């Protein structure tokens, strides 16, 4: 038990150190990409808490990501608060949206849960378009360079941005590790494995699920809020269905129910599209074929497969 814990600490600490070190060696292009991937991987980790560990498949997570993004963006553009405060506003707003939508959506289960979350996310997307006066609809808006700094640190500067993305990612990773190792996380896994049995062991399953949605939404919102201040653009496309499907895809590719899977999946997908679009304009064709092969030969995702074959202790 403790030996596994030490190994896990070494592995995840090593990954974090590696990411930190990479910023000094990567060329500018990949440097920027990795910052983006780290922010999006935090989103995927939040998604993984709900899908990979609790077994709830939401098709509406874009709503929580966008709640963070717009919460932060609008707080800056409409109310003129500082980026640091706006970041907190975005996370709180996204968490709140998550808990309210979660409480409603949890009245359903299975396919109905997927459809209800999808519909709520669509309603959110349409709401953003409807209030175009403030949100500038489809076109979105840019957060002014001058507003993108936290206590003197210019978040648009590549190094600062990388470091900020790293902090967001580390926070998400540590949170996931803590949750997974905790009693709370183990109950979530029990719910995924056999909900009725978990209930008949005396656990208030509904409350655990709602807490999982709240946590998951707060990570999605953190990622959205950080994306806004780090990359300076707030647009309705982030609330669209595509951004609900992407975290599902990242998590499936990387390995649902593994802590590092979301990072691996996001990185893999990002560079798959990046590289294949360098070869042909029909890049989705290449990406599609690779994805089909991956689901055929590693149905549990890259890290899931690794765990199954070699590293049983992988959290």
């Amino acid at each position, binding site marked *: 038990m403790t030996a596994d814990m030490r190994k896990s600490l070494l592995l995840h600490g090593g990954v974090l150190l590696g990411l930190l070190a990479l910023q000094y060696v990567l060329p500018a292009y990949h440097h920027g990409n990795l910052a983006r991937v780290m922010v999006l991987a935090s989103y995927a980790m939040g998604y993984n808490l709900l899908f990979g560990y609790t077994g709830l498949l939401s098709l509406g997570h874009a709503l929580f990501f966008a709640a963070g993004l717009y919460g932060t963006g609008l707080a800056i553009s409409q109310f003129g608060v500082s980026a640091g405060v706006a970041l907190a506003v975005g996370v709180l707003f996204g968490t709140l949206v998550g808990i309210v939508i979660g409480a409603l959506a949890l009245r359903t289960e299975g396919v109905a849960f997927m459809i209800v979350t999808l519909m709520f996310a669509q309603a959110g997307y349409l709401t953003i378009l409807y209030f175009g006066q403030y949100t500038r609809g489809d076109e979105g808006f840019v957060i002014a360079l001058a507003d993108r700094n936290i206590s003197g640190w210019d978040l648009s500067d590549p190094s600062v941005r990388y470091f900020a993305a790293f902090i967001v990612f580390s926070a998400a990773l540590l949170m996931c590790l803590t949750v997974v190792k905790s*009693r709370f996380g183990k109950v979530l896994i029990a719910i995924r494995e056999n909900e009725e049995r978990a209930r008949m*062991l*005396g656990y208030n399953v509904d409350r655990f699920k709602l807490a999982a949605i709240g946590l998951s939404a707060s990570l999605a919102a953190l990622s959205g809020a950080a994306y806004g201040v780090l990359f300076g653009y707030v647009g309705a496309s982030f609330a669209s269905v595509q951004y609900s499907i992407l975290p599902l895809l990242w998590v499936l590719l990387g390995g649902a129910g593994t802590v590092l899977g979301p990072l691996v999946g996001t990185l893999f997908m990002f560079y798959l599209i990046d590289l294949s679009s360098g070869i042909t304009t029909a890049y989705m064709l290449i990406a599609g074929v690779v994805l089909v092969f991956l689901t055929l030969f590693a149905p549990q995702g890259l890290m899931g497969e690794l765990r199954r074959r070699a590293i049983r202790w992988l959290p």
Partner: protein
Amino acid sequence: MNILSARGLTKNFNGLSAVDNVCLDVPHGQVRALIGPNGAGKTTLVGMLSGRVTPSSGSITFDGREVTSWPSHKRIAAGVGYTFQITSIFPNLSVWENVALAARRKLTAAKAVEQAVRSALDEVGLGSRQAESAGDLSYGHQRLLEIAMGLAQAPKLLILDEPTQGLAGGEVADFLNLIAKLRGGTTVFLIEHNMDVVMQVADFVTVLDSGRVIFEGTPKEVKASETVQVAYLGGGDAAA
């Protein structure tokens, strides 16, 4: 004092009464068996007692509190242990983690959990298999694992729905020993088809037929009762 009481418990499914006006009193520490022919309403009755089935009418008191409207998880937290008729475990988790999940609801300290898990596993004889995936166990061992999960909760009342179903002869004997050890401390309420088991472990037997209690008494009285023989064994001459 009674740990469990039911008054006028009724469950209707589309006009059909699966359980009809059942009154029950189970005193502290008793081993109570619930028997009856197939379709008598045993599982529905136990479902109402554990909170999985909402009664159409009637009331349930557990440990001095009226629990009729309580959801199942709350009743279990209050001290009702429940094992399923059809084995319900966490097949992809280890045997140890299965039992730990049961123990962890009440216990927070890692040491205490470990102790509770170890003693529950040793109790049912699965101590040496704690690292295996629960799904890899044989059916009989999965049943024992379920019982271990019930024990690890240290319940005041343990409800067992056909615990010996599918167990081999030796395993049944082990089960009888287990119940003997619990006797006095934990109240046990079991649905059982195996009459030998009932005769050996039960202090008191409730016989259900077509949703009604038709007889209550000690195993001996039940065996001697003509009412039971007619209902349960299908005719007055079926004394065997």
